[in-house]
């Protein structure tokens, strides 16, 4: 059953945790066509003043989309999604960075459900104003 069945405004959706590593960044880079070296090459990332390789903002957003997909469970579909990229997710070599995605129902208008998402990595919000509109599939 979908986590969205029977929800009302203010309902909270179960938090989902994802792990990002360098292999995921490399696979996402190829899949999306975004081959910017700040996501792939530690020496390059550091040369432009970053602490280390950072995940694509769009990868973080795609994982927020994955959380929505799980909540929807094919009974609902995402017709709109927005995110602001506020802080980078730093991904060190040979380790995994966690991403926690939680959701709350913002409002429901004529069957259109607004889900407000909170996306956290390393105790910091990495996406801002993240919201999606979801309807029955």
């Amino acid at each position, binding site marked *: 059953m979908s986590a969205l069945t029977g929800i009302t405004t203010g309902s909270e959706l179960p938090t989902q945790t994802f792990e990002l590593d360098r292999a995921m960044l490399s696979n996402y880079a190829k*899949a999306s066509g975004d081959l910017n070296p700040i996501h792939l090459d530690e020496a390059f990332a550091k040369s432009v003043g970053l602490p280390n390789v950072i995940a694509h903002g769009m990868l973080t957003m795609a994982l927020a989309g994955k959380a929505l997909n799980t909540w929807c469970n094919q009974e609902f579909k995402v017709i709109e999604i927005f*995110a602001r*990229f506020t802080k980078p997710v730093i991904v060190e070599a040979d380790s995994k960075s966690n991403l926690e995605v939680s959701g709350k129902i913002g409002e429901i208008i004529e069957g259109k459900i607004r889900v407000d998402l909170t996306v956290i990595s390393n105790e910091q919000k990495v996406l801002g104003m993240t919201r999606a509109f979801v309807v029955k599939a």
Partner: protein
Amino acid sequence: MAAPDLVGRKFLGTQTQRVNQLDLTSFATSIGENPDTQISQLPTFPIRYTLNEAERIAPELGLDWSRVVHGDQRFIHHRFLRIDEEVRADSEIEAVKSMAGNEILTLRSDLFVGDELVTSTWSTLVFRGQQ
């Protein structure tokens, strides 16, 4: 330096891209989804067809793509793309701002299949100034 009079400038997609199963499967599996995930379950998948348009447009505006940082992103799906459709991105600059030496561009890209608008996207792109 991008000028404010760029607002309203349109860039019609010059070629179509075919939505194919391999691209879909690569995208799904890269984020740990099942290989049989549908496009309707991947709300950000169309970035595959808009980001390369933005990359093509940037130099025409005198902007250096290697200095871009993604500010925000929106997708509105009027319906979902389907495998084997030929998709075209028509883009328009909706806003330009200069802030602290950075050029901030809001680019709308509409994905069309033939005459049908399928997905509308908005990207705010920050082009970092030379320090």
